[in-house]
């Protein structure tokens, strides 16, 4: 069993990680209901 997706919640932190890891960002806008 794979662990769950570890979502970032702040775009600045996600972009900083993306620059370090040289990966694109998956940005998911969702409806928390």
């Amino acid at each position, binding site marked *: 069993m794979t662990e769950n997706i570890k979502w970032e919640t702040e775009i600045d932190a996600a972009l900083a990680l993306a620059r370090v890891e040289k990966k694109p960002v998956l940005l998911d806008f*969702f409806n928390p209901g």
Partner: protein
Amino acid sequence: MDAVTYPNDRVIRFITENMIPLRVAFDAQPLSADFNIKWTPAIITLDPDGNEHHRTVGFLAPEELIPSLLLGIGKSYFETDQFDEALGSLEKLLGEYPESGSAPEAIYLRGVCRYKSSQNPKPLKAAYEQLAAEYPSSEWTKRAYPYRLL
């Protein structure tokens, strides 16, 4: 997405290995306005500078989400002139998910990448011919139609 797609082991593995996942409520400002969000789920591929390269709206099953993300990654490389990297993502998509809804656009974009990296127009014609043979009703076959003359 939360019930079916995001808990899927292949999806978790793909996202963890290839992307930085960021999740934001549809009404969170200023991001919602910045990205003009009107419906969910809205799934967007950004490069590390925050520029958008690909967007889908609506539910995607695991076997459609992964190729859609590969297409987004490929487009993010293509639109930043990294054609070899773009081709890597597109070839992976077409090799592993040829039945996905993202495949026709990937064939089209692969032809464009090959043309842009070689200045040889033959890959554009090859893309049209493959699209016409395998996806005759796709909008990407129609978009590639002029390339039949190359």
